[in-house]
């Protein structure tokens, strides 16, 4: 548990800094409101107006999310394997290789189907 004390302290510092910045900004900064400032911030470009009825986003986003989830789950299994790597030896390596290979078959399939393209 003691190993987490530095993490906790770092978290507290980060949180404190965020709160401090917001408060200090509000206290010391000038307040000049105009229409541009009330707009939503979209990386500096003009915000795209939302179509009537909410509009619909392309399903491509969903594919990206699915790819992300699958590889996220793969990473989760890589972690315990990596920390126990020394004792697991060749057997662990072979099994993990098989695991990653199987998931990469999916990757090859997605690539060939054009799932990685954003046209």
């Amino acid at each position, binding site marked *: 548990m003691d190993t987490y004390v530095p993490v906790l302290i770092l978290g507290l510092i980060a949180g404190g800094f965020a709160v401090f910045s917001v408060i200090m900004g509000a206290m010391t900064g000038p307040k000049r409101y105009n229409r541009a400032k009330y707009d939503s911030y979209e990386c500096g470009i003009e915000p795209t107006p939302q179509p009537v009825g909410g509009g619909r986003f392309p399903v491509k986003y969903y594919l990206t999310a699915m790819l992300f989830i699958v590889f996220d789950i793969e990473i989760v299994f890589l972690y315990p394997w990596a920390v126990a790597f020394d004792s697991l030896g060749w057997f662990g390596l072979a099994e993990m290789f098989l695991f990653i290979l199987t998931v990469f078959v999916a990757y*090859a399939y997605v690539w*060939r*189907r054009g799932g990685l393209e954003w046209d």
Partner: protein
Amino acid sequence: MSILAASSTTATFVAPHVEFGKLSPMLIAFGTATLGILVEAFAPRKQRYGIQVGLALVGIAASFAAVLALAGTTASVVAQGSVAVDGTTLFLQGTILVISFVAFLVIAERKTDQNQDAFAAQGASVPGSAAERETTRRGWQTTEVYPLLMFSVGGMLLFPAANDLLTMFVALEALSLPLYLVCGLARHRRLLSQEAALKYFLLGAFSSAFFLYGAAMLYGYAGSVNLAVIAQHVAHPTAGSTLLYTGVALLGMGLLFKVGAAPFHMWTPDVYQGAPTPVTGFMAAATKIAAFGALVRVLDVGLGVNSAENVWRPVMQAVAIITMIVGGVLALTQRDIKRMLAYSAILNAGYLLIGVTSTTAQARAAVLFYLPVYGVAIIGAFAVVTLVRDAGGEATDLSRWAGLGRRAPIPAALLAVFLLAFAGIPFTSIFIGKFAIFQAALAAGSPDLVIVAVLASALAAFFYLRVVVVMFFSDPLPQGPTIAHPSIAVKTALAVAAFATVALGVAPSLLLHLANNSAGILAK
């Protein structure tokens, strides 16, 4: 092996011995499916169908050969206690593979529907849109269904063999997930199909969650998910039984959902109706076999101790009775042949549950006999349904089937054979199966269940025979459905199914003998 005891040896990791030989049936199935995905990735579109169908059939045959090779070996628990390879496992695996082979012949059929298979040209097209017509015109096909269904076959092979709840859960997901997907890919009546897929997925996910929660509670009770360890703890309890019974109840819900027993049957009619008909046949037969295999293993290996049996048996008997009543009564009211067969599947799950609750070796043998004969007949019945076609796909409304027997005597006669078997007419295989189950239940001392089952059978005979009467003794409709001429593969599948249904009714001793021999061996 308790997980606590195991972890004390953390420091010295010894690579486990993996018995590839004993695991080969499922490894072959999963390997074939993975290969199929590579084919999807790299083969040109025109060649995919042929390669996929060939690959799947060869994979199933190879897997069956592996099962045969293992047939004589001693029962053992392999893969660090995860998988039990015993007589029951091998019998069920062999059955699943034979059924899958026949089902794949029907699934791959293209001749009945203008050289198209039963699956949507492109699953993502909006139903009825121009894009959908365009992809259909180009002759695109969703050939991914073959590797996906092979994944499902692999999961089904593992499900009844799993000897711990974790492996069982992974197998459950591996068998279910591809089926959820494939259910939504019917070529005709897309909306109905998508609705079925969504319902199946949501309810299936709920039931999986129940299963997992139950497994977690049993782990809390026994300190292990291994069925043998759970059995030890049940026999010599070290703690109160609250966790045990809550866990068993939740686990049971998950499993009863898969076998389609009331009151967890709600998905069955909608999914059976909406799914592509050949897939419905595959699901009705193979999923039921795998799920009953898993149920038998959990109840007989994990909870086979007398003290536990006395608790779960009355509950399961009640479930069996409700299932038979629900299946029998609601089947009577159906106008759609696929829905009617779905309720008949629920009814048959009820009969099978009688066998499961009896827990004697005799009852287990009866269940093992019933599963293949029922599976073959239901695949045959759904295969006949794929042949009766209208402009918008299959004509599944019963009123459209009037006089079919005069216009197409052979398909109608084949369906009549399967329906008469379901109705339990003597000299059919299912009659023998029912007889064996009822006999085992009487021997195990539950005549009340047998009485309900006989009454339900009488009720069932009415709606099965009604279809036969509509087909043979009504006047044909002027604009009746057309009868497709199937390819030699479907003809073979139908002939095999009908032959098996009759032959195993006249001379059942070989399969009965095999079932008897297999049922006694349950690795613990």
